[in-house]
């Protein structure tokens, strides 16, 4: 098995963190993972993306060539992924902050109000963790236990509790849109 | 005169077989070297405890005449090399010997930051007011309007005051004297050697071959008398106006502050880091 997942957005949204947490959870489950990132000069605001490759075999090329899933958290990022070559790719964009009506998107694209849901759950800044959950629902071999573990290593106290809740909501959301291959 | 009867004589630090040295007739560097050796003797240091780092320039040849550990390096970089040696092995007494070009011109940035860092190194700057080794070009300490081989019509650039610069930047011991005031060289170097933190002694030295010759002082005695006339003690200078001090060489101890050397501060950092590691 091999998955190629991209988290994208603008700097400051924590997309790179989401990617590294996913990779770390995969490695904890005995899988291989490679996570790369591309970012501009500004730490805040510019286009940012991370590629996460997860496989049960050695990962050679560490960048996504035929992504299976792209999560898009900001409009500048969507512009990068308007012409995805892989027919089976799913592109999930945040419909609460991106007005997709001006783009001619095919059925591979669908919107989920990611930031809005995160906000409802008490933390708009945890949109990345919600995204992590969505992506995790996609990969059957990553256990919830290991995902919780990586969150516990990264967060403390109230924020940890909130993020664990948001992670679960993300997984549920992901399942609801039937992402599993 | 026979000197003090200490355990290690100043001669133990001198590579006598390398004499006569390569400095020109009347160059003050032999005097500074000898004063440094006297200070070594008085300090009670043994040759193996001392590391002398030299850069490039006439004063950068000083390591050829020393029986200490010596490290001869690239132009301008004696201070960061000395910094590395001292941090890696704090039990050593580390000196950086630099000329005015080495220390303040090409190496000026390191001089500022070694002062700010207050690294536990002793800098002995022999300032002959020009680049002697390459034929008498102007350096950043050449007095304004002086004639040199690259300022035939006068140096258009004002001179940098090394002591005021380093004192402002945070060096905790700063002193200046001249080769004319020979006894104070040894005294200041000795003070610098026992100082914790960055210590700097600047010695203005005659270069009759170039600077002197180009500026109507072709012989060492003339240059020494010129240094004598130009020198004003820091105590006296306090009561003089900027105008009265123009062109003067202010001598004396500019800074002598205790505490907060780089190494003592870093010990604190290591203690905090170890606590952090235990807490993990």
């Amino acid at each position: 098995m091999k998955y190629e997942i991209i988290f994208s957005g603008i700097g400051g949204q924590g997309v790179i963190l989401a990617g590294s947490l996913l990779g770390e959870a995969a490695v904890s489950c005995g899988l291989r993972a490679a996570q790369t990132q591309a970012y501009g000069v500004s730490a805040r605001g510019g286009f940012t993306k991370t590629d996460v490759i997860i496989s049960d075999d050695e990962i050679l090329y560490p960048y996504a060539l035929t992504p299976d899933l792209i999560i898009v958290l900001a409009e500048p990022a969507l512009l990068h992924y308007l012409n995805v070559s892989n027919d089976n790719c799913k592109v999930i964009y945040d419909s609460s902050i991106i007005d997709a009506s001006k783009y001619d998107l095919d059925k591979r694209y669908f919107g989920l109000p990611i930031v809005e849901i995160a906000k409802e759950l008490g933390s708009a800044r945890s949109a990345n963790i919600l995204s992590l959950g969505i992506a995790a629902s996609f990969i059957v071999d990553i256990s919830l236990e290991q995902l919780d573990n990586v969150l516990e290593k990264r967060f403390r106290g109230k924020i940890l509790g909130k993020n664990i809740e948001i992670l679960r909501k993300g997984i549920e959301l992901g399942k609801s849109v039937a992402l599993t291959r | 005169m026979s000197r003090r009867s200490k355990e290690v004589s100043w001669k133990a630090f001198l590579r006598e077989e390398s004499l006569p040295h390569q400095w020109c007739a009347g160059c003050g560097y032999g005097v500074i070297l000898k004063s440094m050796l006297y200070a070594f003797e008085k300090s009670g240091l043994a040759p193996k405890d001392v590391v002398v780092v030299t850069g490039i320039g006439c004063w950068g040849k000083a390591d050829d005449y020393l029986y200490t550990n010596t490290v001869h390096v690239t132009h301008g970089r004696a201070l960061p090399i000395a910094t590395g040696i001292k941090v890696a092995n704090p039990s050593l007494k580390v000196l950086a010997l630099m000329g005015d070009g080495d220390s303040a011109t090409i190496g000026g940035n390191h001089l500022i930051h070694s002062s700010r860092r207050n690294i536990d190194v002793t800098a002995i700057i022999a300032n002959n007011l020009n680049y002697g080794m390459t034929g008498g070009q102007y350096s950043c300490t050449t007095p304004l309007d002086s004639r040199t081989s690259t300022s035939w019509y006068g140096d258009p650039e004002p001179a940098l005051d090394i002591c005021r610069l380093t004192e402002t930047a945070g060096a905790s011991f700063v002193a200046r004297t001249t080769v004319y005031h020979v006894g104070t060289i040894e005294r200041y170097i000795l003070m610098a050697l026992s100082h914790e933190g960055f210590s700097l002694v600047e010695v203005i030295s005659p270069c009759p071959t170039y600077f002197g010759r180009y500026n109507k002082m072709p012989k060492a005695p003339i240059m020494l008398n010129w240094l004598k006339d130009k020198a004003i003690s820091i105590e006296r200078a306090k009561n003089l106006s900027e105008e009265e001090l123009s062109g003067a060489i202010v001598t004396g101890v500019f800074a002598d502050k205790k505490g907060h050397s780089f190494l003592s501060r870093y010990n604190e950092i290591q203690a905090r880091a170890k606590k952090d590691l235990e807490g993990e």
Partner: protein
Amino acid sequence: MTGKIGFILGNEAIVEGALVSGATFFAGYPITPSSEIAERASRRLPQVGGYYLQMEDEIASIAAIIGASIGGAKAFTATSGPGFSLMQENIGLAVMAEVPCVIINVQRSGPSTGLATKPAQADIMQARWGRHGDHSIIAISPSTVQECFDLIIFAFNVAETYRCPVLFMADATVGHLREGCVLRSKDEVEIINRKRPPEGLDEYYPYKADEDLVPPMATLGGHYLSRFHSSSHNEKGLPTSSPEEAKDLIKRLYDKIEKNKDKIVKYKTFDVDGSDYLLIAFGGAVRAARQAALDAKKRGLKVGVLQLQTVWPFPAEYVCELAKDKKGVVVPEMNMGQIIGEVRKAVPDAIPVVGANRYDGEPLAPYEIMKALDEVLSL
């Protein structure tokens, strides 16, 4: 940390490997894409009684690690393109004064400030020839996070063995790559420390080499007085302008690396036996090369990969041996073609050698290597 698997950046693995090597001193100046090395070093070194010094520039950084190594520490610095350029003069000092140290260059696109956050492999010739004067140099290049960890230990080992600077030529694709990495402990790896002179010598000559052409390095403050010199010097460490002594020194500095090449050169091969074509790559480009070889296999082509873990000294004899029965060679590099020149010099003239190059700041992709392979097929 024994055998712990970390999911870490290549840059972080470099620091962990350096610590296992026994490094206790880092001096550097922050620069993208190497800064995570400085950041991690600043947190980890004081925990183990070591030192992190943030210097005023890269010139001071390389100077400080040379000083620290003279002072007895294992020392390293990390930088990227512009900083690497600034370090060249003092890398020459480390060569001449024979001071072991490790310089990491996480290569980015250039020239000048170029594309600060984007990868390249365009400093590999600068690594070989960046300094003035005749000399040999050792350069090592990792292609995975695990190799960042393992090869930095190797880098320290060869630096200590041969009393020389070692250039660790990573690139942004590897430095900013997160992967699983086994963080081996000190007991699980071979650690080499510099050779010390025996006690009881009448006089210690700091530059008198043993049979392996490497002079033992005395501990400052120990039994012997020592001298280090940037200018042409004799065995005593005193400056000399004698043509014989100058020639002997330059020759020895060169030979101690070139004549020990078989111990310094490290490489990996993938499916080279019985292959018709050969890809020769180093660093980040290896990943694309291996993927391309796999893709080519699906097309029925037999393609092997040679990964140069040690790029300098260049294993010309081995490259020739490996390539001589192939139908063609492709050299993928994230530059306009640098190592390809060495490959061309090494392989027989009849064998076509084609480059697969990318120099726009984007990582080289497998399909670009495939295109170059197609070009070889068409010849």
